[in-house]
């Protein structure tokens, strides 16, 4: 993957807040990027894209430990 940040109206980037990231408990917001290169060749699967959706995000995730 090689990504480029979306500048936004003021050049400081775009951050999407208050959107759930799958079943993660919380996140700090989606920092929006676009892909310059986005490809894979793994375990018999291949794809290759550019100029598509991308983002950076920090998440908190967890689950009960069995037997606790």
């Amino acid at each position: 993957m090689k990504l480029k940040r979306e500048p936004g109206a003021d050049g400081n980037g775009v951050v999407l807040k208050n959107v759930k990231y799958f079943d993660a408990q919380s996140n700090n917001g989606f920092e929006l990027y676009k892909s310059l290169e986005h490809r894979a060749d793994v375990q018999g699967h291949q794809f290759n894209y550019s100029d598509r959706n991308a983002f950076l995000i920090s998440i908190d995730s967890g689950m009960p430990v069995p037997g606790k």
Partner: protein
Amino acid sequence: MKQTTKKQIFKIGSLAVAILLFVGSSPNSSSSGQARMNADYVEACSCHLFCPCYFNKHAEHPMCEFNMAVHVRGGQSGATNLAGAKYWLTGDLGDEWGTAKKGKWVVVSFDPTTTKPQRDALAPIILKTYGLEWGELRVQEAPIEIKRIGISRRLNSATASWLT
């Protein structure tokens, strides 16, 4: 004789308290009974910006082919410290993830520096985070490198990630 028994009971009692205190204060114990992690994701997919999967039950196309490079900043599962672990998810959510909770395929790649206890602890957290039943799930090992390029987090900033 009675005095001796009392002393013995006191000694046993002291030992039991000491063990309880030791177990309670062990840094490896998970007092909350939770495995937890805080992780930084670099993610891209086949949808155009912004991926509709986060607001709808279907992707833009009948697939959502993705790469996710993940660096675990902190976390604990039982005695296992998860900080510093790295993994990479490559896959396709397919067309039923939003309606039937079924993903098409996913390959989980662990960086060689991620220990076996970390991998064992992270695997269920990863699966729980997405909550999908995968049609194909494979695990492998591969070096992962995540770099931020650019003079600032502003306009010229780019993030490149490689799985080799």
